[in-house]
């Protein structure tokens, strides 16, 4: 597909029972402008090596899936301010996902949209924590607490990455995830120090999410090949534990004791939740390839 080529997605491409006119009326002019997509992409034109691309994809997928999960809360949060807060967090994560997946895609000539919408479940490399259901407010906050503490450690370490694109993405993300961490910590303190009901429920939620923490800090062979570029996940654990201990002490909560899950997200093995998330995330793009508005 050449850069100048413009594909017009009219009713003829995906003609269906609704007929051509109905289709055009409902969706307007739906077209794919390849040039436009290229310009949209942030980055400096560098091409990632296969190992760096795999790493960027892991991080990008974490952010993409969590962004999708948090977006569920918009209009469902307990108060309007929280709708806005969670929408903002989701938007930050989507920004990180775009930059990371764009960079990952340079290794194989795929765009961020190709990676987000046209990969199947085993090709996603996100961790299990971000896949876990968070439609209970306490569960969502527990997931946010663990993940934002991890991301703060991660992006702080990535600031000194030997890969200039990863370092540039981290420099922006690090400022943003500090706000995410602050948001989660404030809510954990509020729930733990609130009513008996909120306290008992947040304790359950923290235990529900705890099994998925281990995977965030598990090293594998990829990191041996990324010395100086990506921090070994295990090296981020001490900072995570330290901050978590401070938060739990302040909230007068015990460290959860649930055993680690047999998570395999980094190898493309996902929990049962993942298929449902992708179905919602990818449905529109697959139903109307190249759609834009």
């Amino acid at each position, binding site marked *: 597909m050449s850069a100048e080529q413009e594909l017009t997605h009219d009713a003829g491409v995906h003609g269906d029972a609704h007929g051509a006119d109905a289709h055009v009326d409902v969706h307007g002019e739906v077209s794919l402008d390849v040039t436009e997509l290229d*310009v949209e992409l942030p*980055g*400096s034109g560098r091409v990632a090596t296969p190992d760096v691309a795999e790493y960027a994809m892991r991080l990008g997928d974490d952010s993409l899936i969590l962004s999708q999960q948090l977006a569920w809360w918009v209009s469902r949060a307990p108060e309007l301010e929280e709708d*806005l807060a969670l929408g*903002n*967090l989701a*938007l930050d994560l989507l*920004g990180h996902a775009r930059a990371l997946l764009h960079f990952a895609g340079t290794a194989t000539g795929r765009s961020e949209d190709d990676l987000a919408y046209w990969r199947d479940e085993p090709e996603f490399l996100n961790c299990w924590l971000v896949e876990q259901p968070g439609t209970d407010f306490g569960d969502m906050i527990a997931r946010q607490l663990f993940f934002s503490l991890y991301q703060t450690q991660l992006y702080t370490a990535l600031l000194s990455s030997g890969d200039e*694109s990863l370092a540039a993405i981290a*420099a922006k993300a690090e400022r943003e995830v500090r706000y995410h961490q602050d948001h989660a910590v404030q809510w954990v303190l509020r729930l733990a120090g609130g009513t008996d009901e909120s306290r008992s429920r947040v304790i359950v939620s923290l235990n529900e999410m705890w099994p998925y923490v281990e995977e965030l800090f598990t090293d594998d062979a990829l990191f041996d090949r990324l010395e100086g570029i990506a921090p070994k996940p295990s090296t981020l654990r001490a900072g995570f534990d330290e901050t978590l201990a401070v938060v739990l002490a302040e909230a007068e909560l015990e460290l959860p004791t649930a055993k680690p899950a047999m998570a395999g997200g980094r190898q493309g093995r996902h929990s049962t939740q993942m298929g449902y998330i992708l179905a919602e995330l990818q449905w529109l793009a697959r139903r109307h390839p190249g759609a834009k508005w």
Partner: protein
Amino acid sequence: MAREASPRREVVSGVTAPTPAATGVRPSDEASARVWDLAATILDPEVPALTIEDLGVLREAHADGKRAHVVLTPTYSGCPAIDQMRDDVASALREAGYDDVEVSYTLAPAWTTDWMTEAGKRKLEDYGIAPPQARSDAIRGPIPVTLGVKCPRCHSLHTREVAKFGSTSCKALYQCQKCLEPFDYFKIH
């Protein structure tokens, strides 16, 4: 908005600003400076009191005959306004007669509210948004400093944070305890 040779070009406030000399500064050659000035007329679509120059989003401008190249940097990673800014800059340059226009993005160095001009901060306050009250270092040290945010209407420091996340990524929601008005605060970043 007319923008002939502006006498003062503050790019960063304070003396110890870490901004690299190469970006965020109006070019010294006349041709590139013209491109810069044209781009500098574009307003932030979400905070229309500020130009992209006031905001620190405008990083570089280059001209070569009828060719113009402008480099922007996004504020927050997910800020959707950046695409609108790009389109607006491109239109302004095409209208001014440049026929080969390129607007690209850079992520590094990462945008910070430290780059907001003093003029920009005054405009924000006049518009009803409290500008960032300190340099970005203040929120990143080992001991986070809590700062009083001044009400843009009555200038009272007796204000409280209602929500850390507001109508756009860059803003938090505050309320003045004295005049009771709610207002947006442009967060330190």
